[in-house]
């Protein structure tokens, strides 16, 4: 009996040591939840969520101070993936139609009107506007996130937001039209009913 107890104690000590060591050696650094949320956000830095950028919004979500449906550029897909990540209920996006994201847009400066005031350059969160004082400015289209933050500061209203041009590179197949024709379905069901009735 003593031998049995000793054997078990020895085994327990051995496995305890192994597991304890493994816990230290193979420790997995899980990335903090803020980084995970930030990775999902669209990084437009537009502030439509009422936070100063995507990272502050991510921090607010992580702290439980903000809802997950405040990001119009991210759309329903973002709400879905945030809900999956945080294991919370999906809530519908925004509360009015203005919040609905209409598709990707970019800023374009109307060069004839630009006076070179540099106000938009200071407003751009991703340094996508090029120019200098009293020189014409221009937007680097590939870097523009479409946040619209450059529009209000412009004193001459020379910035327009236009939809991103569709090219062969960014073209997507449309969602297939999957619609059961009601009338057809009805006919099929009635036929089925008849067949069943005949068989029984």
């Amino acid at each position, binding site marked *: 009996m003593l031998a049995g107890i000793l054997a078990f104690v020895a085994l327990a000590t051995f496995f305890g040591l192994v597991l304890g060591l493994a816990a230290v050696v193979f420790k997995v650094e899980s990335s903090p939840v803020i980084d995970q949320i*930030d990775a999902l*956000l*669209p*990084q*437009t*830095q537009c502030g439509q969520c009422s936070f100063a*950028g*995507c990272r502050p919004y991510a921090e607010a979500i992580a702290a439980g101070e903000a809802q997950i449906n405040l990001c119009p550029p991210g759309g329903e*897909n973002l709400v879905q993936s945030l809900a999956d990540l945080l294991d919370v209920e999906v809530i519908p996006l925004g509360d009015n139609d203005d919040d609905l994201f209409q598709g990707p847009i970019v800023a374009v400066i109307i060069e004839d009107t630009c006076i070179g005031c540099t106000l938009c350059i200071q407003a751009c*969160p*991703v*340094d*996508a506007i090029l120019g200098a004082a009293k020189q014409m400015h221009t937007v680097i289209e590939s*870097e523009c*996130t479409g946040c619209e933050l450059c529009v209000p500061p412009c004193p001459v209203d020379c910035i327009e937001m236009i939809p991103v041009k*569709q*090219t*062969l590179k*960014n*073209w*997507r*197949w*449309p*969602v*297939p*039209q*999957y*619609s*059961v*024709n009601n009338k*057809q*379905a009805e006919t*099929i069901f009635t036929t089925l009913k008849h067949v069943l009735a005949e068989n029984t």
Partner: protein
Amino acid sequence: MSLSSTLHRLWSFPGGIKLDGNKSLSNHQAITTAQLAKQLIIPLSQHIGHPAEAIVSVGDKVLKGQVIGYANGPVSAPVHASGSGIVTAIEERLIPHPSGLSALCVIIDTDGYEKWIECTPLIGNSVGTSAGTNEASAQTLSSLSSAQINEQIANAGIVGLGGALYPSAAKLRTAKKMHTDTLIINAAECEPYITCDDVLMRRRPEEVILGILLIKKVVGAKKCLIGIEDNKPEAYQALLTAISGYEIPNTEAQIEVISVPARYPAGGEKQLIQVLTGREVPSQGLPMDIGIICHNVTTAVAIYHAVYRGEPLISRIVTITGGAIRQPQNMEVPLGTPIRDILNQAGLDEDKIEKIIMGGPMMGFSLPSIDTPVTKATNCILVSEKDELATPPPAMPCIRCARCSDSCPMSLLPQQMYWYAKARDLEKVQDYNIFDCIECGCCSYACPSNIPLVQYFRYAKTEIWDDERERNKANIARDRHEFRLERLEKAKAAKAEAARLRKEKLAKKKALDAEKAKNEENSSEIESSSSKNKSSDNTDLIQEAIARAKAKKAQQQSQKKNTDNLSAAQQKKIDEVNKRRQKRAGTEKLQP
């Protein structure tokens, strides 16, 4: 050379379906030539990879075969003028693409002379050499290096004409690097209606064989298999005759023509490889991963033309077929010819038109317009009449019968992918290996509920790519934003630092001044006590300097600028002004 044509073991691929070929409509006539179009519309992007960059400008005269767009990057192909004439525009035009979008095209108004640019073939002894070629520099196949041939292929703008449109030179280069030992020539042509490869092999078998030998030489392949579906016995026979009748310079060359059972999609690259070699291309891998390279017969002929005749890829054979075409046929069409022209030439029955499809009924797409041009991708234009192609009735719910997975040649699970694609669960759909889907359409064909499965998979694929692009863009935006914040922070810190330094400097200066003043006081005391003379000298000097300065100032004030050479009128005016000033000075003095 050895010839073993019948005793080759064949394997099989999973799934697949038996389809009505409908090939006899167009496969027995001779290859016709398209009439020269008045205007050629040549898209700059007719291949996978970067679009070519236009090097001609509006108003330029171009010759047939002249480069009008150069290859922009390692995976790209040049574009050539397919007729002589004048460039009238470089603009966006509708192109044959399922999106119905426009892309940049070079528009050439043809002059009808068809004057060729000088061609420099690498090898002279071609079959039926075309006139006007420069054979002085020509060599024999054995004396050419692999790189030389490949350069000629790259310059000729040849891309995979089986439908992949991948630049051939890039593919051959990679194959050579990876020591590919087996060359498979895809001559299966499994899609119904299409016969362009079939007639090419029937009518020009020698060109096919010589082209294949060139590819073999470039890659350094030891073995070559030509896979051809058993519904093309004439083409099969023609190739055999061509091989036996040809003295092939490379004695190691071993070309086998193998007849494979006709079952759609036997012409899929991976399926053909599996049938001929029994080996499977790894998931999301390339045939080169298992030492195989696959090329289409039409590509081989284009390579033959490039090397033996020095001609770039400026035309291709297009099958024009379907119930609404009076004379179904195969036509050699210069690239850029409007599809409307070739349909009219083949006798388009306008009243019968139901659908106009580019490609076959399984993998083709409805053309957005027939005013789009023929491109390197156009293998077939199918104009169907009513009831010729079954229009799918509205889709019904999935009943999980698994016919789609039974028919899938890639052994995928279409029903599962369908659920997830429909729910836009892009991660899950990738877990089911959607990127191994070859979009053959067997699943949609087999589905008893008429669910457009393949459309869902295409949709999901483009959504996944789009997501990836968005993600990349977001990452760049994040980096730029963080960099900006950091920069602003730095600027702020630098400003604060500068302010602090200024303050410090000021404080130091003040302290120094105070000390100096103290010292001066002391020193003056000392000086006054020690040498009174010196200090009086100093005061004299100061007095003198002040006097000098005053004199100078007075002189400056009295000297007015721009007052030399004044005319009488000007002098008068100035006098008047001076008077007025004096007067005003007088009144102002009175006022207060």
